[in-house]
């Protein structure tokens, strides 16, 4: 009997020895490479016809592009447009990492806190550096909310600084916990079906119920995968907006 958390173990597929570093190619790395390859192949083959009036696949790729471009434009303004390639790559990487994990027997890269935290900390540091380079020391006026009474400013600044530093933590934990909880729940229901069926007799017919629940849950998980990719990206755009425009 497999435990529900066994799906999150990292297995080493093969070991590479590059320039004296012992790099172990794990199943996590394989699925990251797969996410990049699938999204790149999808975009390449979808845009191949390059027709003025798009067919179905090209229309899909163009809708995806327009969706993210609109998100960047409306959340980060015109000054955010140079960052669009990064945001689009981020959206597609998170989306495909989440979706590829729903294939049975596969592995979800974003269900590891180290992966999501690495992405979130890079976004946080990048956005902070953009703000520091653009505004210099005036950046620290971001922590003083407009129109606050002078007495309360020290407390408000403390609260604002703490909530600023919580941003990478909340960004990463949101994605990680959604993926972890969803996949664990799927496996728990699967184990439940096996347990009910192994009770024998009339229960074998009853074990169809957890399987029906898994169908519903998988639909929910697809929704959550897309939604979490959208939320990750739109929060990145909002943090970029804060950095570029300081309120």
């Amino acid at each position, binding site marked *: 009997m497999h435990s529900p958390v066994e799906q999150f173990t990292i297995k080493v597929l093969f070991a590479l020895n590059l320039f004296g570093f012992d790099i172990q190619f794990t199943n996590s790395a394989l699925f990251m490479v797969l996410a990049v390859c699938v999204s790149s192949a999808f975009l390449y083959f979808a845009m191949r016809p390059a027709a003025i009036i798009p067919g179905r696949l090209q229309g899909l790729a163009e809708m995806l592009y327009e969706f993210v471009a609109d998100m960047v434009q409306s959340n980060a303004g015109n000054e955010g447009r140079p960052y669009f390639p990064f945001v689009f790559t981020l959206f597609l990487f998170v989306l495909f990492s989440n979706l590829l994990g729903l294939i049975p027997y596969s592995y979800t890269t974003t269900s590891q806190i180290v992966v999501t935290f690495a992405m979130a900390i890079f976004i946080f540091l990048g956005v902070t550096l953009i703000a520091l380079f653009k505004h210099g020391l005036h950046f620290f006026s971001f922590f003083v909310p407009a129109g606050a009474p002078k007495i309360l400013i020290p407390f408000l600044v403390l609260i604002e600084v703490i909530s600023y530093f919580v941003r990478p933590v*909340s960004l990463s*934990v*949101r994605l990680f*916990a*959604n993926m972890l*909880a969803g996949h664990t729940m799927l496996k728990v229901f699967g184990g439940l079906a096996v347990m009910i069926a192994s009770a024998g007799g009339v229960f074998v017919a009853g074990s169809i119920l957890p399987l029906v629940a898994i169908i519903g849950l998988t639909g929910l998980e697809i929704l959550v995968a897309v*939604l*979490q990719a*959208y*939320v990750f990206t*739109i929060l990145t755009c909002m943090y970029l907006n804060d950095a570029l425009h300081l309120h």
Partner: protein
Amino acid sequence: MDVEAAKMIGAGLAVIALAGVGVGIGSIFSSLVSSIARNPAARDTVFGIGILGFALTEAIALFALVVALLMLFAL
């Protein structure tokens, strides 16, 4: 009280926070439905913000879940 029992009790107490999250998500969707009912043309604008609000509120639920899992398996 031995450590195992304390872990179970702690994990159970941690998920009490989900009550607040349930209220929050219900409130978001109730205001989403009534604002679409008042002005059906605003649907596309309001829906995106509603989904963003839902995901942010759900994040709080998952923070509670992470604390419960930490208590059960890590500490």
